[in-house]
């Protein structure tokens, strides 16, 4: 199995169910498809439904909510944090088809794949410190050899020769050992680190002691406890996250005030510059071009013609709540009937009209039943289809 950064694509998918976070997947019902190309790649479907997850290797990716395609190296690299996901996505190395928002959500649904921690402690490392850990005060009068037969990967044979309050370490097993410890390398490391209980190890036959059991029992006193080398800790960097919300009061002034009064009566009012005749909607106190007071209000629309339609795919926070807006939605700029040639009116388009509405189409406002003098007195504009 091809590995990238010591991890295979299979490793990522095989651990996915274990890495699933129920709290991050609340209310999510989706099928995430993965098409991983190159050595070690394949196709997987990850089905998230009713707070559970099912991961399956497959040949058929149909019926997905979102599909992620990448080469095996990029996929592994992004999953273990060795490659920047945004960078890979922007440069086209990762392609996403379907509901983009699910990709961001999946970061919350699964904890990050972490490399199985390689033990920094080796058998050799333990024996390198054996002489230094020798406690002569607990070995007075002893004249014996202790044998270690550590089997398996990373193992070896050593003999500790204790004599005259001194300890010497030889490689290989002496014939005259008072006691010989036989154990697999991995179990030996666990025993030394205190992760494996010696009694359990002996009871299960994983640790075999041959020779003088009394000597064996004294060994923990003769040698001080092995201290594993401390890993360099990364400094914790503090970040605080807040969602500030400040209550505000805004004054309408008389011009915008009259405009809001109009909305309550289902009328759209513009104001007219007494000098150049320009109309503004929503009205503004002055004509910015002539710099004069423009107080005369004239009813316009309410229907009009779209001059620009903007379909928003990017979700941004609503300034009133800080909550994220749902996408896609469309904003329209409308030349209301009777306004003149240049002053467009900005509002939202009815979601149902999003698919087939374009510049030049005619629209009309859909009024809210609860009009209080606000932008929301008009729910949105809808296409005039009759």
């Amino acid at each position, binding site marked *: 199995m091809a590995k990238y950064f010591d991890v295979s694509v299979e490793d990522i998918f095989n651990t996915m169910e274990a890495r699933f976070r129920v709290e991050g997947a609340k209310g999510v019902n989706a099928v995430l498809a993965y098409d991983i190309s190159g050595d070690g790649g394949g196709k997987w479907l990850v089905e998230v439904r009713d707070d559970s997850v099912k991961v399956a290797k497959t040949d058929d990716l149909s019926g997905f909510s979102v599909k992620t395609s990448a080469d095996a190296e990029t996929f592994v690299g992004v999953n273990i944090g060795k490659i920047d996901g945004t960078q890979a996505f922007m440069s086209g190395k990762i392609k996403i088809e379907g509901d983009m928002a699910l990709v961001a959500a999946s970061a919350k649904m699964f904890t990050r794949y972490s490399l199985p921690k390689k033990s920094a402690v080796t058998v050799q490392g333990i024996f390198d410190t054996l002489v230094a850990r020798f406690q002569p005060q607990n070995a007075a009068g002893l004249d014996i050899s202790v044998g270690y037969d550590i089997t398996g990967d990373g193992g070896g044979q050593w003999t500790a020769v204790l004599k005259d309050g001194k300890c010497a370490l030889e490689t290989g097993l002496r014939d005259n050992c008072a006691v010989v410890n036989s154990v697999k390398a991995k179990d030996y490391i666990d025993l030394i680190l205190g992760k494996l209980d010696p009694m359990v190890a002996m009871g299960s036959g994983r640790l075999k002691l041959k020779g003088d059991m009394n000597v064996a029992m004294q060994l923990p006193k003769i040698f001080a406890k092995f201290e594993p080398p401390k890993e360099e800790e990364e*400094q*914790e*960097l*503090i*970040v*605080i*996250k*807040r*969602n*500030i*919300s*400040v*209550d*505000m*009061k*805004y*004054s*309408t*002034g*008389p*011009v915008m*005030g*009259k405009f*809001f*009064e109009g909305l309550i009566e289902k009328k759209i009012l513009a104001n007219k510059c007494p000098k150049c005749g320009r109309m503004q909607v929503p009205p503004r106190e002055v004509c910015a071009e002539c710099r004069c007071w423009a107080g005369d209000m004239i009813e316009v629309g309410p229907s009009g013609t779209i001059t620009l339609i903007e379909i928003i795919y990017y979700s941004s*926070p*609503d*300034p*009133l*709540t*800080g909550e994220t807006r749902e996408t896609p939605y469309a904003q329209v700029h409308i030349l209301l009937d009777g306004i003149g040639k240049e002053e467009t009116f900005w509002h939202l388009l009815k979601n149902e009209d999003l698919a087939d509405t374009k510049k030049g189409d005619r629209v009309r406002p859909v009024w809210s039943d609860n009009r209080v*003098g*606000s932008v929301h007195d008009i729910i949105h504009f809808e296409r005039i289809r009759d």
Partner: protein
Amino acid sequence: MTEENKHCYIKEGKLALPYQYFAGRIGSKFLVSLRDKKKILGVKCEKCGKVFIPPRKTCERCFEDISEKWVELSNEGEVTNFTVVRTDDKHHPRKAPYVLAMIKLGGADTPIAHILDGVDPDSVKIGMKVKAVFADKAVNTMLQIDRFEPVK
């Protein structure tokens, strides 16, 4: 009321935005020390001799890099000035009335503003000896010191 004023309204609104703040290496060391060791750290400018809290990278007067010149300060200090907050606001850290005091810790040259609790607001005095009471849980801001209280 004039004719025009009749058309003037006040609309309730909000300004709401998510944000975050990074304390940086120096600020993080300070906050982690408060949280994990209950020790208050400052930094010393070796040029002018001033000990600053909260710690900062630069001495603002000498413009020297002092980021590695850590000193441990006392958890006790004295009130150099104070005010009594007597209005309530949702952004305030306590219900009124409460005391906001400037407190100069032992070993520091700059005072810090903090909440002084456990004393009648009317009997707070400049020069009063106070000590830091640390928060039980992780806060990761200056309120990792929950409050100051008078030394009994």
